[in-house]
C-alpha cells in the first residue's frame, strides 16, 4: 500500500516537473518581453532562403493581412502571441528596399513600428534567426488573423498615413 502511494506521489511530482521544465517543448523564455530601444532598428536578414525583416536582436518581424490598412486589431490576448515591435520615441532606424518604416500609436498608448503603414510584430515562439509563425491563421476574441513574415517583397503596396509621433511620410517608391 505504502509503495502505491509513493508511486502516486512520484507520478504527481513527475507531472509537475514536466510542467515546470516545459514538457511541451517550449523553452520558457518566450514570455520575456523583448527589449525596446529609443531608436528601434530594423534590418534585413537571410533566413531559410528569404530576405526577412528582423529587429536589432535578429528576431523576425511579422505583419497580418487584417492590419495591412494600418488599423491595429491585435490587442489583448493577441499580444501574448504576437508582440508589437514597440519604440519608445523617435523613428525606427534602418532601410527596407521597397518599403518605408514608420510608427503608429496603438490603442494602449504604445508606439509601434510599421512597414508601409502595417504594424510589425514579433512571434513570441521564435528565437533569433527563426521563422516559425509564417502563414499562421489564428483568432483572438473572434478576430481572425493571417500572419506573414515581413520581407522586402511583401510589404503592403500602399503606404498608409501614420499617426502619433508621425511616420516617415514618404512612400519609398
Amino acid at each position, binding site marked *: *500500500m505504502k509503495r*502505491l*502511494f509513493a*508511486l*502516486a506521489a512520484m*507520478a*504527481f511530482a*513527475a*507531472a*509537475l516537473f*514536466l*510542467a*515546470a521544465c*516545459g*514538457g*511541451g*517543448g*517550449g523553452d*520558457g523564455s*518566450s*514570455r520575456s518581453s523583448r527589449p525596446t530601444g529609443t531608436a528601434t532598428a530594423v534590418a534585413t536578414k537571410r533566413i531559410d532562403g528569404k530576405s526577412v525583416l528582423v529587429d536589432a536582436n535578429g528576431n523576425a518581424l511579422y505583419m497580418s493581412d487584417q492590419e495591412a490598412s494600418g488599423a491595429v486589431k491585435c490587442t*489583448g*490576448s493577441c*499580444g*501574448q*502571441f504576437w508582440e508589437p515591435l514597440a519604440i519608445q520615441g523617435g523613428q525606427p532606424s534602418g532601410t527596407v528596399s521597397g518599403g518605408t518604416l514608420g510608427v503608429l500609436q496603438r490603442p494602449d498608448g504604445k508606439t509601434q513600428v510599421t512597414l508601409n503603414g502595417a504594424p510589425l510584430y514579433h512571434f*513570441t*515562439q521564435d528565437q533569433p534567426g527563426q521563422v516559425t*509563425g509564417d502563414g*499562421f*491563421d*489564428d*483568432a*483572438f*476574441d*473572434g*478576430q*481572425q488573423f493571417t500572419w506573414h513574415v515581413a520581407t522586402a517583397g511583401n510589404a503592403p503596396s500602399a503606404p498608409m498615413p501614420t499617426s502619433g509621433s508621425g511616420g516617415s511620410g514618404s512612400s519609398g517608391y
Partner: protein
Amino acid sequence: MLAALSLLAVGAVHLQQYNELYSAIPTIGTLFVLNFVAATVLGVGLLVPFERLWRRGGAWIEATLALGGIGVATAAYVFLLIAQRRPLFGFMEPGYNPDAILTSQVSEIATVALLGAYLVVRHVPIGFRGRRSATRSTSTQEVKA
C-alpha cells in the same frame, strides 16, 4: 498505472502551455487550468487501489475515475481539433507549438485507449455476467458435492 501516468501527462502539458502561452486567453486559459486540475485529481485517484481498500464501493470509484479520465482526455482532444479548424470561444489555434500539441494528442489518445481497455477488462457487464455464471456453477457443484 500507465493510464494514470498518461492522464497526468495530459494535465502537465496543459499546465505547461498555460504558463507558456495560454494564460492570457479568456475561457481557453481557464479550461487549461481546469484540465490540469481534473487530470491530476483523476490521475492520482487512479493510482489509489480503491478496490483493495473498499471492496464493494472501490470498483465503482475506480470505474468512475476511469470514465472521468476518458472524459477529460476526449474533451481536450476534441476541443483542440475544433480550435484548429475554427474559432473556439473566440480563439483559433494554428499550431503555435507543434511539439506540445503532439505530446498532448499522444497522451490523450493513450489515456483513452488504456482507460478504455481497463474498463472493458474490469467492468463491462459481459465480464460481470461471466464471473457470475462461473460463481453459480461453482455453487452448484458445491451443493451437488
